[in-house]
Structures are given as structure tokens and as C-alpha cells.
């Protein structure tokens, strides 16, 4: 009976998970989605816990859950700029969990009931631990790179024969896995198991090492789908359909997001994973010679006052500078003057999908004023002033024609079509792709050098001052 009840709750939980993701496809219903997810998880936990036949010890469970809350809560308060790191970090937790459960299952059955180590289940266990542990270390690395931790190299690290070594490791792990499937309970099996664990852990590190900090978002979502798949594997081991479904949902989500990112950057998976992208940094300097035209805040202010339609193109710089609230003030100032203000959101502006949307939403800017690239580009010629706010690659015209450029073919926001361009950045440094951007030298472009937050702040003062007089 209890079993039937458990099964029923699992069915319900599954349905709720699907609905959660479904509701997320529209900002209006999105929060309902979260509640559905919470409900589903709650049901799953309780249904699992409330099986007297199976769960006999409660102390450890309570402790672990309590600790989980203690650590989880602060992790949910991180500043929005740190969201990518946070996500990476919790992927690593997820991977760890899957790995540990896999390990526990194996040694449990090794000790108690060999019979259960059927080839099918053994295969599942091995898939579970390989995916789990590589996600664990891989995501830790990713988090580190994003957090720009000292002793983790930001730039892609490459060494001779790297890919051979990496792939080699994986193959060895797989081969060992096969042998384990065939002889799950020999005297030496346990050691082989540990060996596989070790290889998976190392593989995770090597996988992420050669990838540049800016490609991390893509890597993160790939790791996300690995985490999902390890949950699926766990489901196969425990014959638990809920695990299988939830894991599959997670897996496909990670996969699709990374595909979307790759498409928007016009790069291939392989290129992201093994391309050691961002090493090209060196090439940045060359362009340095050409001349920029700088503009003062005053001048910019006047230009803006006369404008009819202003399009703000935010980029990673706005995120770094945490400038969104100042931007909001600018937005208000301009609106007060009857200037139409739109935000042009590039799919991969910033460092994670939807990055800009979240930041601007945080600053209470209605998402109805955030226009996607494809919708805004046709209007750019009518745009009087385009403010390029810490964006670089996503407005780099080279993407249109320069076959040699690493971002060639990536769709961009046509800021260069606007009548005037105001570009806010701190220096002459390139963006993530490490390439020069001719937009800054264009006739119509005026540079506003400085930190995005500071510059925008000054602009606001300028404008509000203007009204004061």
C-alpha cells in the first residue's frame, strides 16, 4: 500500500516538474513554475522519506537536510553578477551527490548482495559515477574560473597532446568500466572502481582547463546536462522513474541551452570544448594604433537631450560595473524628456544566457522595453543615438564580413547603423573574443571612457542638472 502511495506521489511530482518548466516559458507564469518545482521536490522528498519499510534511521537525514539549508540559503543571496559561479558550484554539488550515491550503492551490494550487480545495473552505476564525478571537478573548475580565483588560470591552459591525454583518460575509464561490468565482484573489483572514480575526477579538471573563462557559460550548461544524465543513471540503478524523468528534463535543458549559445556565437560544440577559445588575446593590441574620438559627459548629455529614439546596447561591461541601477535612472531621465528608450538585448550579451535581462529586470526596467536583437535591428537606422554600454563583441561589425575573425558569422546588433554611437568602456582593451572592434573608430562613434557605472552616473547628473536650470 505504502508503495502504491509512494509511486503515486512520484507520478504527481513528475507531472509538476514538467509543468514547472512549461510555465517558465512566459514571465507571467514563471513564478508559478518555481512553486510547482518546489512542490514537486517536497512531494518527492517526503514520499521517499515516509517509507518505514526502507527508511529506518532519521538522525543523519535530519542533520544533512539542516546543513543543506544552512549552506543553501546564503548561496541564494549572492549578487546577480555571481549567478554563473553559483550555478557552476551547485552543479558540482549535484555531480558529487550522484557520484557518492553511486559509490555507496556499489559497495553496499558488493558487501551484501552480489546478485544485484547485474550487468545492466553495473553499467548504470558506472555511468552514474563517471558523469557524477567529472561534473563535480569540472564544475568546480568552471566556478573557479568565473570567480577568477587566484590559483585557477583564467585563460585557457593548453599543453602538447592535451586532447590525446584527455580523451585517453576517458577511454581508460570506460575500458575499466567494461571490465567491471563483466566482473563486478572479484577481489580486485573494488580497486578498479576506485580507479575509475579517480580518472573521472581528473578528467573533469582536464576537460575545463583548456577553456577560456568566457566560454564557461556554455561549459556550465553542458555540465548541467551531465548532472542530469547522472541522475538518470541513478534512476536506472534504483529503478526509479521519477529520477529518470527529472534527470532527462535537466539533461535536455542543459543540452539545448548550450546549443542556443553556440548558435548565437556561431561556434560549434567541438570548438567550444577543444578550441581553447580566447587564446587569441594577443592579437588584440595591433588595432591599438587607430584613433578614437572621445566625448565629454557634457557633450553626450546634450546629444541625448535632443534625441528622439535612444537604443541602449548593454553588454558584459554593464554587468561587471553593476551599472544597471544607474542605467535605470538614465532611462527615467530620458523618458521624462519624452525620449523613447529601448534596450537591445543580444542573446549572448554578458556571460550567461539572459544575463542582461536579469540585471535590467533587477533595476525594475519593464521587460517590455527589452527588445531582442532580431526585432530591434530593423529599427536601428531610425535610432538617433545608440549607447553601447560595456558591450563589444555583440556590436562588432567584423562579424558580418571578416572571415578571419573568431566571431565571423555571429549575428550582431547593428549599433553601427544608428545615426550616432556613444560607446562606454574603460579602456582600449578588447572584449571576450579578444579582437579589435572597428565600431569604436567609426565616424559617428564617440567614446566615453570610464567605468560604466561612473559614466552613466555622470550622465544622469548632467541631465538632471540640465532640468534643474
Amino acid at each position, binding site marked *: 500500500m505504502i508503495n502504491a502511495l509512494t509511486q503515486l506521489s512520484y507520478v504527481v511530482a513528475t507531472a509538476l516538474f514538467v509543468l514547472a518548466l512549461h510555465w517558465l516559458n512566459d*514571465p507571467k507564469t514563471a513564478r508559478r513554475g518555481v512553486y510547482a518545482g518546489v512542490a514537486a521536490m517536497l512531494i518527492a522528498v517526503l514520499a521517499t522519506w515516509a517509507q518505514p519499510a526502507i527508511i529506518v534511521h532519521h538522525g543523519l537525514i535530519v542533520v544533512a537536510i539542516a546543513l543543506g539549508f544552512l549552506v543553501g540559503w546564503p548561496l541564494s543571496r549572492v549578487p546577480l553578477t555571481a549567478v554563473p559561479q553559483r550555478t557552476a558550484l551547485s552543479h558540482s554539488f549535484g555531480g558529487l551527490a550522484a557520484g557518492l550515491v553511486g559509490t555507496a550503492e556499489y559497495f553496499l551490494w558488493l558487501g551484501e548482495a552480489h546478485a544485484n550487480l547485474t550487468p545492466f545495473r553495473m553499467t548504470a552505476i558506472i555511468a552514474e559515477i563517471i558523469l557524477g564525478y567529472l561534473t563535480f571537478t569540472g564544475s568546480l573548475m568552471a566556478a573557479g574560473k568565473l570567480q577568477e580565483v587566484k590559483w585557477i588560470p583564467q585563460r585557457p591552459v593548453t599543453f602538447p597532446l592535451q586532447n590525446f591525454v584527455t580523451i585517453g583518460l576517458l577511454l581508460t575509464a570506460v575500458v575499466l568500466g567494461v571490465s567491471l561490468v563483466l566482473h563486478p565482484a572479484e577481489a580486485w573489483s573494488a580497486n578498479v572502481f576506485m580507479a575509475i572514480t579517480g580518472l573521472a575526477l581528473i578528467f573533469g579538471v582536464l576537460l575545463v582547463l583548456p577553456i577560456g573563462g568566457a566560454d564557461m557559460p556554455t561549459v556550465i550548461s553542458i555540465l548541467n546536462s551531465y548532472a542530469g544524465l547522472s541522475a538518470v543513471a541513478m534512476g536506472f540503478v*534504483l529503478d526509479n522513474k521519477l529520477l529518470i524523468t527529472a534527470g532527462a528534463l535537466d539533461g535536455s535543458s542543459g543540452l539545448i541551452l548550450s546549443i542556443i549559445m553556440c548558435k548565437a556565437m556561431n561556434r560549434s560544440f567541438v570548438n567550444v570544448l577543444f578550441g581553447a577559445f580566447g587564446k587569441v588575446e594577443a592579437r588584440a593590441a595591433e588595432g591599438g594604433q587607430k584613433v578614437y574620438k572621445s566625448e565629454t559627459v557634457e557633450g553626450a548629455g546634450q546629444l541625448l537631450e535632443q534625441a528622439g529614439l535612444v537604443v541602449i546596447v548593454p553588454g558584459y561591461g554593464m554587468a561587471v560595473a553593476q551599472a544597471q541601477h544607474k542605467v535605470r535612472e538614465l532611462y527615467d531621465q530620458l523618458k521624462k524628456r519624452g525620449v523613447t528608450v529601448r534596450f537591445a538585448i543580444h542573446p549572448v550579451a554578458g556571460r550567461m544566457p539572459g544575463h542582461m535581462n536579469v540585471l535590467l529586470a533587477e533595476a525594475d526596467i519593464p521587460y517590455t522595453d527589452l527588445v531582442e536583437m532580431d526585432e530591434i535591428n530593423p529599427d536601428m537606422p531610425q535610432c538617433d543615438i545608440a549607447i553601447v554600454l560595456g558591450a563589444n563583441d555583440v556590436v562588432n561589425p567584423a562579424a558580418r564580413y571578416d572571415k578571419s575573425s573568431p566571431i565571423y558569422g555571429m549575428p550582431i546588433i547593428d549599433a553601427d547603423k544608428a545615426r550616432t554611437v556613444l560607446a562606454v568602456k574603460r579602456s582600449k582593451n578588447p572584449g571576450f573574443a579578444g579582437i579589435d572592434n572597428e565600431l569604436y573608430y567609426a565616424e559617428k562613434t564617440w567614446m566615453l571612457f570610464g567605468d560604466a557605472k561612473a559614466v552613466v552616473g555622470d550622465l544622469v547628473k548632467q541631465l538632471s542638472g540640465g532640468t534643474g536650470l
Partner: protein
Amino acid sequence: MLSSAAEAAHQTGGSAPLDYWSMLFVFMLATFIGVGVIRRVSRLLHTPLMSLTNAISAIAVVGSIIVTGSDHPRPIRILGAIALFASMTNIVSGFLITDRMLKMFKGGGAKR
């Protein structure tokens, strides 16, 4: 779950293979759903999406609870407890931060 699954395996090799297949079925169908649903999530919400699926992937909690709570040797249950702690952290932080982000999305007058 675990132990019962174990028994099942013991009893009949007959019904076992059938089960694998239904699992495969479930996996395939779930993937279809996932792909279908995710592709329609608005670009606007891709960041929340990441953290929500991240929370959902913490479903491994189910396995962790079983391992931690069953009558197994202590070391094994310790492993389970660590796993449980890790998953719980994801659940809590994942859902909280997603909701925190979504709270911020406010539609202006016009519909999108």
C-alpha cells in the same frame, strides 16, 4: 526502493528485463518532453531557467535519502548523508535564487 528493487531482481529474471525497457521508454519520452518544453522558454528567462533546472537536477536527493536512511553499514550511510547535504543545498539555493530573479521581472504596460 533500493532493497525492494533488490528483491525484485532476485525473484524473477523474467520480469526484470521488461522493467529495463519501461525505464528506457520513460527516459525517451521524458527527453522528448524536455526538448519540447525547454525550446519554448522565453529568451528573457534563460538565466532563471538555468538555476531552476539546476534545482530540479537535485532530484538525486531521492537516492541520497534512501542510502542515508536505510539499514546499511555506517560508512555507506555517511556517503549518503554527504550526498543528501549536497543535493539539499542545491534545492534550497536553486529554487530561492530562481524565485528571487523572477520576482524582478515586471511587465510594463504593453504585453510582450
